[in-house]
């Protein structure tokens, strides 16, 4: 009997390595992130659509007071923050994959991704700041806007 060595055992000659070395296992982590965030996003987004569009008067109920009422509650602040970050990272990575697949020129790929990452960073930072610096009980022209969640003036 001759023992046949498993081709994948031991060291792999550098020219056959699938990862670029310096990249580490970023692509595998990105792949895993898409699946983990995807499951969470199904719950977060279906919940978001149900509560905002299907309950009560649906879309007619949405105005400043509706958003203020939700974000007066840390539960919805956290819900929306998780949705913002997970959806933006999930979407940005998805579009990154599509750019890598279809933009053939190195320079085109590079610049499309620069635009993508810049846009995503702006949206994530803006959204995060809005959720946490938002005042659900503004005083307009000296009048406290009505809202059951606001302290009496």
């Amino acid at each position, binding site marked *: 009997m001759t023992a046949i060595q498993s081709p994948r055992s031991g060291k792999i000659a550098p020219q056959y390595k699938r990862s670029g070395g310096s990249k580490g296992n970023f692509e595998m982590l990105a792949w895993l992130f898409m699946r983990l965030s995807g499951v969470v996003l*199904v719950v977060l987004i279906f919940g978001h659509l149900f509560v905002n569009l299907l309950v009560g008067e649906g*879309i*007619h109920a949405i105005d*400043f007071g509706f958003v203020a009422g939700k974000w007066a509650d840390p539960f919805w602040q956290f819900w929306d923050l998780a949705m913002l970050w997970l959806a933006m990272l999930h979407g940005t990575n998805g579009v990154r994959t*599509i750019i890598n697949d279809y933009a053939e020129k190195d320079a085109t790929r590079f610049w499309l991704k620069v635009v993508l990452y810049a846009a995503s960073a702006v949206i994530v930072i*803006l959204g995060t700041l809005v959720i946490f610096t938002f005042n659900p009980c503004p005083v307009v022209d000296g009048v406290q806007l009505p809202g059951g969640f606001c302290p009496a003036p």
Partner: protein
Amino acid sequence: MWSWVGHRITGVVIFFFLLVHVLDTSLVRVSPEAYTAVIGAYKNPLMALGETGLVAAIIFHAFNGLRVIAVDFWKKGAKYQRQMLWVVLALWLVTFAGFAIRHLSLALGGH
């Protein structure tokens, strides 16, 4: 193959809507009037159709994404991928019909 194409197209559509949706929601930080004015644009009948189309894309992307996860992580996932696509399409039809009836009757039904 077509489910893969559909997954990409719906993904891109949802991503671009997400960018706009964060921007419009950010107007709550500007002023109550600014937000209410812009959100009013979402309440006209044409936009109601757009929202319904967007949710159709979201529901497909959600269920097909769960199917992709099942193909990748479930031992028999690859074997049953075709049957799971039919399950995805059936769930899509039921969920979308439920959403469309409720949302369109609210949005178009007058107020």
